[in-house]
């Protein structure tokens, strides 16, 4: 049953790949990649259960966090064209604080 | 200081739950890494009411089960929308006004809206939220009133605004 679930998630990954390849806008692609990351976490977890090695879950935890960081980096890039702008809603304050420290 | 202590217990629980090795050497390494983490956090000044929101834990314990049930209900709606033979969605964009005062409560409210499938918060400006919904009927401002009230009760400080 776990194996069937694993195959189902992999099938979902294949379908999602279609969206990542077609994706008319950039955001569709980011969405597809983000969802892909979630599914990869699930695949790794289920793989651990199928192979009887549940310590794979450590890697799944790492993946969850890495996926988040990657998505935020991508969106920051698109919103501000730079990684150096803080993601705060108060740009003046943040910029001033950063300058006084630097 | 209290936030620091609560953060210590949080990462302590995280370490204990993830490690599985409780020998003195490993525990010593753990203590060392806790100390470094806490010092770094204190230096970065990220441990405040928002960084360590454990004080309102009980309010949230009451809030999250309700939110989970809401998520289940709206999931069902979206699953039906995905699987219906013909597409019958009516996306809409609405402006909401929230009664939440503090930033934490607003963020909780906005994230709750995003977490329920079918609605997603597009933008927060002051106390107004821009929400995109998959069904026009489910995205009327009245539909969010209860969630708003519960968020305000769970996350807004009763005594003084932060």
């Amino acid at each position, binding site marked *: 049953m776990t194996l069937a679930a694993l195959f189902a998630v992999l099938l979902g990954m294949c379908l999602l790949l279609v969206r990542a390849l077609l994706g008319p*806008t950039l955001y569709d692609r980011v969405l597809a990649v983000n969802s892909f990351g979630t599914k990869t976490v699930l695949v790794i*977890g289920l793989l651990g259960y199928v192979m009887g090695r549940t310590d794979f879950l450590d890697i799944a935890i790492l993946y969850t966090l890495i996926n988040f960081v990657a998505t935020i980096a991508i969106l920051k890039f698109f*919103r501000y064209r730079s990684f150096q702008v803080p993601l705060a809603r108060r740009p003046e304050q943040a910029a001033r604080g950063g300058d006084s420290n630097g | 200081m209290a936030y620091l202590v609560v953060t210590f217990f949080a990462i302590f629980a995280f370490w204990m739950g993830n490690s599985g090795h409780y020998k003195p050497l490993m525990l010593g390494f753990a203590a060392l890494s806790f100390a470094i983490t806490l010092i770094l956090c204190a230096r970065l000044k990220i441990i405040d009411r928002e960084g360590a929101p454990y004080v309102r834990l009980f309010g949230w314990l009451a809030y999250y089960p309700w939110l989970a049930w809401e998520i289940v209900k709206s999931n069902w709606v*979206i699953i039906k929308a995905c699987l219906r033979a013909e597409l019958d969605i009516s*996306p809409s964009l609405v402006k909401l006004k929230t009664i939440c005062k503090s930033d934490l409560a607003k963020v909780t409210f906005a994230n709750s809206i995003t977490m329920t*499938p079918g609605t997603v918060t597009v933008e927060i400006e002051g106390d107004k939220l821009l929400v995109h919904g998959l069904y026009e009927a489910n995205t009327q401002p009245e539909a969010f009133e209860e969630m708003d009230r519960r968020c305000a009760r769970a996350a807004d400080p009763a005594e003084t605004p932060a």
Partner: protein
Amino acid sequence: MAEFFALIGNTWEIVRFPLGGAACLLGAILCIVGTIGVLRFPDFYTRIHAASITDTSGAGLVLIGMALMAPHWIIVVKVFCIMGFLLLTSVTSSHALVNAAHTAGLQPKIGPMGRSVHEEDEEDRH
């Protein structure tokens, strides 16, 4: 009384594996459903709703299934860590995604659609 609890414990040991497997399978199927939604829906803003099915109920059910089948309590803790991180991060990233798209000026399609609209045929052909 002790026998009763032992009985419950034994029954639980037997029941939890099929239950966990079923939860995993159901969650994985919901992942596929969400992906189908991502493929079918007409524009970005509607697709993100479909993707959130994968993130909440799909991943949640798969992880609950894993927790039910866990051989050790540490595994349960790890699974719930993953679930917590996944919920928090998926919400944040989908909000950031929509916000970035909105800031960039991507206009959502508003209003009822799907009756005799052109896109549907196109989507089906894909």
